[in-house]
C-alpha cells in the first residue's frame, strides 16, 4: 500500500490553523520529495545488485510496518492519557558537544551475537544495522563498520543556546496531530561561525519506519532494543522527544531545508571521556538534550528512508563537510506542566 508522504507530515499548529495550512503541508512535502529523489537515484546506481537486493529485503522486513499501517491513516487520534503535557527546555549559557563521524561499538544486549543477531531490519542506520556491516571478533560483534553520527568522537563548540517549547497531546501515530513544537538552537565554532536549527512548521505525525507518536512523545523508552529510532544509540529513558521538519542555518542563512529534525531529553548516555555508553552503563539520574539532523530523508510514497547528507556548512579537519548535526546540550533548565 502506498501512502503519500504528506500523510506523515502534519502541522504542529492548532487544528484550525492546521486546516488552513494543509495545502502548504502538501507543497512542502512535494518540495521535500523533489529534493531527495535525485541524489538517492545516484546513490542507488552505485550499489551493486546484491546490495540493492539486501537493502530492499531489510526494508521489507522492518518490524514496525504492521503497527504503523494500523495508525498512519487515523484522522482523529486519541489524546494522551491524563491530558496534554507541555514542557520547555532551555540552555542559555555554555557550549555544546558536537558528535563527529565514528564507528559505534555494538552492544550485545542490543545487537545480539553473530549466531543470533538482533536489530538488523529496516533502513541501515535508521532502525537496523545489517549483519554484513558489523565487525566480528572472538564470536562477538565489535563495531558498526560504517561511520555514523553515533560514536565516541566529538568536539565542543561555544555559546550553545536552546529554546524548545512543546506540547504532547496526541498519543499515537496518526494522519493528523495536535502536538506542537517550537525549537530554536544555535552554537558557534572557533572561527565565529554560527550554526542553527529551526523547527517545526510540520511534525512527523506518523513515522515512516518507526513510531513517532504524533510528532511528540513524553516519558517513553527510545533507541537501543526498542526499535524506535536507531539502535546505534543506547536504550534510553526519554522524558520528551520530537520529530519534525525544520531548517539548518549557517551565519543566519538557510543552508538546508527541509530536513527531519529530532530532539530528545533523555537520561545521560555518555561516560568517561564522553564515550557513548552501552545500555548497562547509562546514568539514569542525570539528563541531557540531544539534537539531531540525520543524514537521511524519507522516500516518496514508501515507508522507508534513504541516505542524504545534511548541508551543515561545518568543515571537518579532513576538508569534508560534516554530513549531520548531532549536538548535545547539558546546561539545562527544564519546566513542564500537565493540562492546557
Amino acid at each position: 500500500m502506498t501512502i503519500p508522504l504528506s500523510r506523515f507530515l502534519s502541522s504542529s499548529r492548532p487544528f484550525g490553523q492546521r486546516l488552513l495550512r494543509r495545502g502548504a503541508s502538501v507543497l512542502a512535502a512535494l518540495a521535500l520529495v523533489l529534493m531527495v529523489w535525485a541524489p538517492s537515484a545516484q546513490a542507488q546506481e552505485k550499489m551493486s545488485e546484491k546490495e540493492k537486493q539486501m537493502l530492499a529485503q531489510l526494508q521489507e522486513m522492518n518490524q514496525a510496518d504492521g503497527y504503523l499501517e494500523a495508525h498512519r491513516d487515523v484522522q482523529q487520534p486519541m489524546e494522551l492519557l491524563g491530558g496534554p503535557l507541555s514542557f520547555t527546555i532551555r540552555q542559555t549559557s555554555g557550549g555544546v558537544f558536537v558528535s563527529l563521524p565514528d564507528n559505534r561499538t555494538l552492544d550485545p544486549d542490543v545487537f545480539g551475537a553473530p549466531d543470533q543477531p538482533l536489530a538488523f531490519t529496516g533502513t541501515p542506520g535508521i532502525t537496523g544495522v545489517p549483519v554484513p556491516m558489523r565487525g566480528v571478533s572472538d564470536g562477538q560483534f565489535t563495531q558498526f563498520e560504517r561511520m555514523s553520527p553515533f560514536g565516541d568522537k566529538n568536539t565542543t563548540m561555544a555559546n550553545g543556546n536552546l529554546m524548545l517549547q512543546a506540547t504532547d497531546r496526541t498519543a499515537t501515530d496518526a494522519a493528523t496531530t495536535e502536538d506542537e513544537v517550537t525549537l530554536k538552537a544555535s552554537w558557534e565554532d572557533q572561527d565565529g561561525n554560527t550554526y542553527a536549527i529551526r523547527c517545526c512548521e510540520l511534525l512527523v505525525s506518523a513515522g515512516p519506519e518507526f513510531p513517532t507518536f504524533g510528532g511528540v512523545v513524553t516519558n517513553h523508552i527510545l533507541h537501543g532494543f526498542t526499535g524506535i529510532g536507531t539502535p546505534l544509540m543506547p536504550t534510553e529513558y526519554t522524558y520528551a522527544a520530537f520529530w519534525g521538519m525544520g531548517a539548518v542555518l549557517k551565519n543566519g542563512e538557510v543552508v538546508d531545508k527541509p530536513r527531519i529534525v529530532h530532539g530528545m531529553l533523555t537520561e545521560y548516555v555518555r561516560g568517561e571521556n564522553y564515550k557513548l555508553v552501552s545500555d548497562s552503563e547509562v546514568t539514569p539520574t542525570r539528563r541531557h538534550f540531544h539534537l539531531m539532523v540525520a543524514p537521511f530523508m524519507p522516500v516518496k510514497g514508501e515507508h522507508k528512508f534513504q541516505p542524504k547528507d545534511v548541508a551543515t556548512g561545518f568543515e571537518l579537519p579532513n576538508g569534508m563537510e560534516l554530513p549531520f548535526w548531532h549536538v548535545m546540550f547539558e546546561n539545562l533548565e527544564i519546566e513542564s506542566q500537565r493540562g492546557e
Partner: protein
Amino acid sequence: MSPVSTHSLARTRWLLGPAAVLLFLVGRAPEAQAQSSSPAATVDMTNTLSFAPDTVRVQAGETVRWTNGSVIVHTVTADPEEATTDESVRLPEGTAPFDSGTLDPEERFEHTFEVPGTYRYFCIPHEGAKMYGTVIVTPAE
C-alpha cells in the same frame, strides 16, 4: 571543623550586580584578591570533561583555585545532596559541603581547606561522564 572561606567569583558577581562587576573590573575585592594571589594549587576544567590535574595536594589553610578553561559550563561540587551516586563525593568527617554553583567559561572558584583529609568532588552536569577530582589536604607544617 568546616572550611572557613568559600568564595566564588562567579557567584559574587551575580549576586552583587553592576557594583560587583565594576569592582571586579577595577580590582577584585580585598578578600578575593588575597585568595587569588596565593592559591596553593590550581585546577583547570576542560572541554574533555576532566579536572586537570585530577588530584592536587595542599596543606590545611591553603586555597585551591579552579578555572573553567573550557567552553562548557561546569561546577565544582562536594555536596552529597547534589550527588546522585555515592562515589561522586567524599568529605572528611564533620566537614561542611561546598559547591561553586554554575561556572561559565573563564569563570573561577576558590575554596580554602581547613580540615586535613581527602576530598572528592564532581561536576554536576557531567557526573554521568565521571568528571571527578580529588583534593588531598595534609596538616599544616
